[in-house]
């Protein structure tokens, strides 16, 4: 590391390292963010959930969408439609999408998250969560 020689250089370095803390900063106010939960049970992983998660993370980073955070969850029970993801927009009911692939991920981001439009492949919620 060469010495930082001005306030400007410090600002540049800060911009560069800011992403190191991205996940922690997001976790700090997760309730205000759009949360994308990828189902990561054995069936999900076998159907490609890990790739789905990677694509999500990369697309969000490429497009600089700071209001989205990707987490994982376990089997939601929709094994026929794996990989599945649940998208939680603050203030709205969670929505589950099935048979997610790269194309669909783009649609989820562009149509549902950005514009609030639903798209094909939404799995109707068949259960209530315990705390509800």
């Amino acid at each position, binding site marked *: 590391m060469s010495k930082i020689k001005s306030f400007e250089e410090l600002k540049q370095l800060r911009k560069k390292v800011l992403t190191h803390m991205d*996940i922690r900063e997001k*976790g700090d106010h997760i309730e205000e963010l759009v949360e994308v939960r990828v189902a990561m049970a054995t069936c999900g992983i076998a159907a490609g959930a890990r790739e789905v998660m990677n694509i999500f993370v990369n697309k969000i980073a490429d497009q600089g969408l700071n209001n989205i955070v990707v987490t994982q969850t376990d089997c939601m029970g929709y094994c026929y439609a794996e990989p599945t993801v649940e998208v939680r927009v603050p203030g709205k009911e969670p929505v589950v999408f099935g048979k997610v692939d790269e194309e669909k991920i783009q649609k989820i981001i562009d149509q549902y998250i950005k514009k609030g439009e639903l798209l094909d492949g939404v799995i109707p919620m068949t259960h209530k969560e315990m705390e509800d």
Partner: protein
Amino acid sequence: MSKYKMHVLVCGGTGCISSESEKIVKNIQECLIQHKLEEEVQVVQTGCFGFCEKGPIVKVLPDNTFYVQVKPDDAIEIVEEHIVKGRKVDRLLYKDPGSKKAIEDSKHMDFYKKQMRIALRNCGFVNPNNIEEYIARNGYYALGKVLTEMTPEQVIDEIKKSGLRGRGGGGFPTGLKWEFSRKSKSDKKYVVCNADEGDPGAFMDRSILEGDPHSIVEAMAICGYAIGADEGKVYIRAEYPLAIQRLQKAMNDAEEYGFLGDHILGTDFSFHIEIRYGAGAFVCGEETALIHSMEGERGEPTIKPPFPSESGFWGKPTNVNNVETFANIPIILLKGADWFRKIGTKKSPGTKVFALAGKINNVGLIEVPMGTTLREVIFDIGGGIKDGKKFKAVQTGGPSGGCLTEKDLDTPIDFDTLVEKGSMMGSGGMIVMDEDDCMPSVAKFYLEFTEEESCGKCTPCRIGTKRLSELLKKITSGQGTEAHLQELRRLSVVIKETALCGLGQTAPNPVLSTLNNFEEEYIAHVKDHQCPAGQCTALLQYKIDPETCVGCTVCARVCPVNAITGERKKPHSIDQKICIKCGSCYDRCPTHAIEKR
């Protein structure tokens, strides 16, 4: 965006390290490699999370899962279940003591809900050994701003406007102290960080140095610029090896990045820091004694004035601030004095870190806005008293402070209200006592501490604390008289008025405050020769209730001095002349027929 998808934070504070948290880090890393996830999940060793009661803590982000009391062997389950399959490990989650329900997210824990973290903002959040994580959290930005956009006078003005008061205990306005140091004319000035944390039960300064050492380095450099000093010293006790190690690493990295050394950030300002070790004497927390100790002299205080801001280290103007005070500086300059003033109370803006200890459910380190009530701290954040017992008192301010009782629970805490109530803020140690604690014994404990820590320079402190502790020994061993109580009061007042430094002047506080709040307990000791809390062994009597005793003979068999006699299946009795009050019978009686009074 980093390539990592998840962060696993593992507490690396001294407490959690002694519960093998370093092994947890290693096991998680190894397990991640087995699952080829080391590129996707970052494991970070952080500073103290504050929830020491349930350490070691492991936190998974971004979903904020908070695991408690994790063992090294649990690492595999955390990785295979949570990280690979997205299933939270239920048995390691924190259970709400009221509802017994597992809480997944640290934000819903009562312990964190009412806290506001300013001084501890980075503790448990960043890796203290990684300067870039500190920079990402706006680290050294305040230093950059100060050096390029503000004059030293403007910096002092901002700190004065913020109303920040010294967090070491005195509560002296920090900005004013800086101004005095600035105005002293000299060719050489020093900035000293007082990290000689000595109150029994207080560990906030250690935790800040362990969890966020860069904030102290940055604040000291800012202070140097403000008062016109080019050298800083950190006076720290040698018993804090981890804090020393992390601070040293932070200083080295800061120098490498150009935040310390000559021509910082290309300006004309130069600043160097050096660590000085203390041997752990309580009196060396007093600033004049601290300076003498740094000079290689005996750690003894001298009369003020002259204040260190006029004549301190090697006779040069020296600005001494406590660790927690420094930790507040960078963020005040980043967010402005007005932001800071809005937090806390009018006369004591900002927050205060407290170390909760004693008979409280959530032992740990917390930070709350000034003006929070004792009830909120002890019952909401601290989770109330252990084992459902009754709250009796809380000692604030350590050996220099006093105890507060039930009637003070709704007092908003700040520097001035605590003094009004006969105690003091001190460095923020809070020792909670329940119905089983005997107040004369508590006073005796603190007096034995100050007696031992008295440097011996002035007579009131050297001999006075010894006499006080002797009187308390008499009272708690059943040899006390009512005249002793008057003597306790008289002597306490004399010591307070005549001792040389803060140590002696405040040493009688635990005696006076327990006498004022629990006089009837003292009277019971000297008049009836009884200890209502059942703690003073010499005053106890064990008696067998003949109604409840079934004559099982267990007590007679466990008694080491054969003081218990009785026939089988008939009530037994204890010969008080032989009984040595060891309590063995009391602990073993299956029908709880033995009373302790």
